[in-house]
């Protein structure tokens, strides 16, 4: 049951082979056994989960079930869920009980899904290793000495360890795709504006996008069907017709044109990751795809541009944490300014403070044009690179991350080294394009390797088609870490 696809779980529930309460209890037991090792969840509330499961069982019995009804999902702790502690991985929100539901949470509720709990994450989604969480490091199920990636590391770890049927994540610079790659699961960041950001705690608003993290591309498609759709409460939510993201899963791949950006295979890519990507591309050729070399000439500028724009937006977004309306307030202070400064200094962790300071600096008087405006101009050049590339190909493929999962603490002292682990994912957020990662083998250290698939705007169905066809012909996505 723990290895079943969402489709199988749904049929098992419909056929009464298992109830949602039994399935939820099965996962709660697994969480109780394994979470002390992986620390994938920050909050579990069996009472709420089981009540939801009971309601789902009634709905199934009444013949009103949808494709996700009764299935237990884990929710990244960045989504406000009414009545649930919602921490965003921060001491600042350590006791914060959300007074309302994020759009994503209401969509899962409406679908009759069960919320299994909130997953650990880098503080305010700022990190690539899950080591910046106030609630402790998350461990990689393939090797607990290694990181799961970040920032959606708790979700990735929970999916890989079979501590939920699937999970949600958010991706500002690679936070769904990079942990999906490092934990050997499938994850997709949709086109910017496709999934409402309402109730999703903001990091960099022009880049943040929620998406599914699951054990297969097919599962991701079913979740996207529930997560997407117009929401007037998000000013950047796009008004588009509802899509069935699973509609093209079974299309053959003959004639698919795959672009390989030469900049993704240059210096900095580990040899073992490079070999696995080459093997995956060879598999795609066997399936009838053609391959064309392309160029994304401004790739090397994506990291610098991101580390101006994302911190700038973050410094502005995080100014709301002032110790007045909600969140942490320092126990001792002299006056109002001192209360602000101490609450923020004590409530935020090191990485968050670092990024607030970068953002404050680049937006400050005299530096705006040189940094913020210049970065926005180069952002257009980076987006234009993709527009040009998509004239020659249907999807772009390459590595998701330059190496497999690294050891805890390995990149701890040098933020710049950590930032470079998102070198292949960041440009996709800057352009607002959809991107996904699927497992395509293992590196020299027996850790999973992720293949990144980048699509044109709103081309998720084609990307999922490419991913699903690969998964029909390979079994990397079905591998399970030892002992789980």
């Amino acid at each position, binding site marked *: 049951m723990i290895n079943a696809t969402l489709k199988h779980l749904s049929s098992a529930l419909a056929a009464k082979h298992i109830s949602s309460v039994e399935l939820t209890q099965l996962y709660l037991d697994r969480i109780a056994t394994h979470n002390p090792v992986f620390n994938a969840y920050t909050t579990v509330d069996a009472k709420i989960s089981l009540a939801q499961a009971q309601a789902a069982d009634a709905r199934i019995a009444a013949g009103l079930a949808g494709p996700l009804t009764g299935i237990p999902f884990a929710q990244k702790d960045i989504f406000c869920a009414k009545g649930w502690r919602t921490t965003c991985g921060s001491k600042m929100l350590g006791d*914060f009980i959300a*007074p309302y539901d994020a759009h994503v949470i209401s969509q899962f509720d409406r679908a009759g899904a069960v919320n299994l709990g909130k997953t650990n994450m880098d503080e305010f989604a700022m990190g690539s290793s899950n080591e910046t969480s106030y609630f402790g490091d998350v461990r990689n199920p393939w090797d607990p000495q290694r990181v799961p990636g970040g920032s959606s590391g708790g979700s990735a770890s929970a999916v890989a360890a079979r501590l939920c049927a699937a999970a949600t994540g958010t991706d500002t610079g690679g936070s769904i795709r990079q942990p999906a790659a490092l934990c050997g699961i499938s994850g997709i960041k949709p086109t*910017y*504006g496709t999934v409402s950001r309402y109730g999703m705690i903001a990091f960099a608003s*022009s880049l943040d996008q929620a998406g599914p993290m699951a054990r297969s591309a097919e599962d991701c498609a079913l979740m996207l069907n529930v997560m997407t759709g117009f929401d*007037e409460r998000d*000013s*950047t939510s*796009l008004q588009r017709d509802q899509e069935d993201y699973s509609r093209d899963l079974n299309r053959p791949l003959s004639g698919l044109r795959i672009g390989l950006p030469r900049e993704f295979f240059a210096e900095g890519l580990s040899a073992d990751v490079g070999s696995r990507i080459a093997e995956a591309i060879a598999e795609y050729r066997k399936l009838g795809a053609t391959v064309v070399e392309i160029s994304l000439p401004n790739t*090397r*500028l994506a*990291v*610098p541009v991101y*580390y*101006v724009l994302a911190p700038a937006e973050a410094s502005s977004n995080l100014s709301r944490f*002032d*110790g*007045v*309306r*909600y*969140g*942490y*307030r320092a126990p001792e*202070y002299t*006056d*109002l*300014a*001192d*209360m602000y*400064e*101490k609450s*923020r*200094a004590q409530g*935020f962790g090191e990485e968050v*403070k*670092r990024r*607030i*300071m*970068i953002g*404050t*600096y680049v937006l*400050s008087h005299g530096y705006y044009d*040189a*940094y913020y*405006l*210049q970065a*926005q*101009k*180069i*952002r*257009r*050049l980076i*987006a234009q690179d993709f527009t040009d590339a998509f004239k020659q190909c249907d999807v772009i493929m390459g590595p998701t991350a330059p190496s497999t999962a690294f050891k805890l603490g390995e990149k701890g002292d*040098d*933020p*710049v080294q950590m*930032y470079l682990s998102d070198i292949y994912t960041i440009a996709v957020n*800057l*352009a*607002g394009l959809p991107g996904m990662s699927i497992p395509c083998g293992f590196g020299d250290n027996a850790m999973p390797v992720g293949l990144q698939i980048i699509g044109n705007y709103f081309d998720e169905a084609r990307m999922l088609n490419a991913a699903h066809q690969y998964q029909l012909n390979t079994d990397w996505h079905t591998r399970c870490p030892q002992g789980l």
Partner: protein
Amino acid sequence: MSLSTSDVQKVARLARLAMNDTEIEAARIQLSGIFELIAEMQAVDTTGIEPMSHAQDVSQRLREDRVTEPDQRELFQSIAPQVESGLYLVPQVIE
């Protein structure tokens, strides 16, 4: 690019982050490293390029000016650090 101690002190003040001298110095070293990475951007010729502030080329939606939200003051204030008579309490700012 190397930041000075006073640059970092100024930024910390603007960002409302209390920091002692040791923390300021640690931040100075790390931020200088990050700005070295960012500096790569400065050499690019961007004359005539329109800044891109958003991923989609859409304009801000407008809506009718009517009340859409119910009053939830009590619920929202129940999670505040300090409230009294429906007001958020902060240290005295006016003598």
